[in-house]
């Protein structure tokens, strides 16, 4: 019974909110359950578990189903399908072998929220101080930053309309979702 409850909480972190709560054309969709892994390794080598580790800091590679964002010189955030939650850390550990590293499953800690629409950057800029212009924050950029009072990881995915992924801690997710909803109302 408890397990079923936990699974529901993971799959629907914020319940079933309307995709466009503000009616502004900015879609705010909480992502379902996903596997998230935090990887720290000082001497990474070119790749692990098929994920590149040699890309520049503050970029994301891969597709929507399996991605890796480099957040710092020795830190990566990896997201993948929920089904991979057990296999991914083991595959990473096998490829990194003897190199000192830390792999932490943070699937329960992180909640993803997808924000898309032509004016999505305006809504995000209500609480995020970064320059989200096309030149400063093109598709493929990913960084840790702030949204209002919460720390987030902001990822920009490629696509015909601007599509951002906001990753925040689970206990911050109601605040972050509410903040984005309010921001979309005034931005739209």
């Amino acid at each position, binding site marked *: 019974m408890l397990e079923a409850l936990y699974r529901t909480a993971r799959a629907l972190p914020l319940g079933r909110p309307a995709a466009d709560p503000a009616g502004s054309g900015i879609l705010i969709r909480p992502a379902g359950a996903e596997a998230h892994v935090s990887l720290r390794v000082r001497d990474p080598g070119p790749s692990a578990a098929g994920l590149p580790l040699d890309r520049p800091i503050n970029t994301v590679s891969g597709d929507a189903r399996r991605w890796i964002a480099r957040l710092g010189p020795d830190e990566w955030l990896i997201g993948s399908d929920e089904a991979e939650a057990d296999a991914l850390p083991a595959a990473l550990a096998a490829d990194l072998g003897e190199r000192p590293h830390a792999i932490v499953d943070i699937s329960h800690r992180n909640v993803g929220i997808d924000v898309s629409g032509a004016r999505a950057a305006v809504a995000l800029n209500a609480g995020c101080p970064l320059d989200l212009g096309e030149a400063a924050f093109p598709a493929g950029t990913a960084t*840790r930053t702030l949204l209002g009072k919460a720390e987030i990881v902001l990822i920009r995915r490629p696509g015909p309309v601007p599509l951002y992924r906001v990753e925040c801690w689970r206990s911050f997710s109601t605040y972050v979702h509410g903040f984005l909803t309010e921001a979309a109302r005034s931005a739209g």
Partner: protein
Amino acid sequence: MLLIACPHCGNRPETEFRCGGQAHIARPADPAALSDEQWAEHLFVRANPRGVHAERWCHAHGCGRWFNALRDTVSDRFLETYPAGAQPSHSTDVRA
């Protein structure tokens, strides 16, 4: 908004950073040999210059790395940022 140049991430807004106080303070090699006054001096006494100051900064809400910066305490202007362990290229008396 004040921008600070993180050595890893480039120009980023000030709110993402934490200041860690004066930089280039070496821990005494043999603390047991120091008098109480000398040890207290190392622990608690810091420069508070009116002008250029070398400080430690952390990109806490970004890459999470510590680095050093030269900041003018009068104008709040950052002269340069450089990796932890390195020396600044501007010649300045950090104890001034």
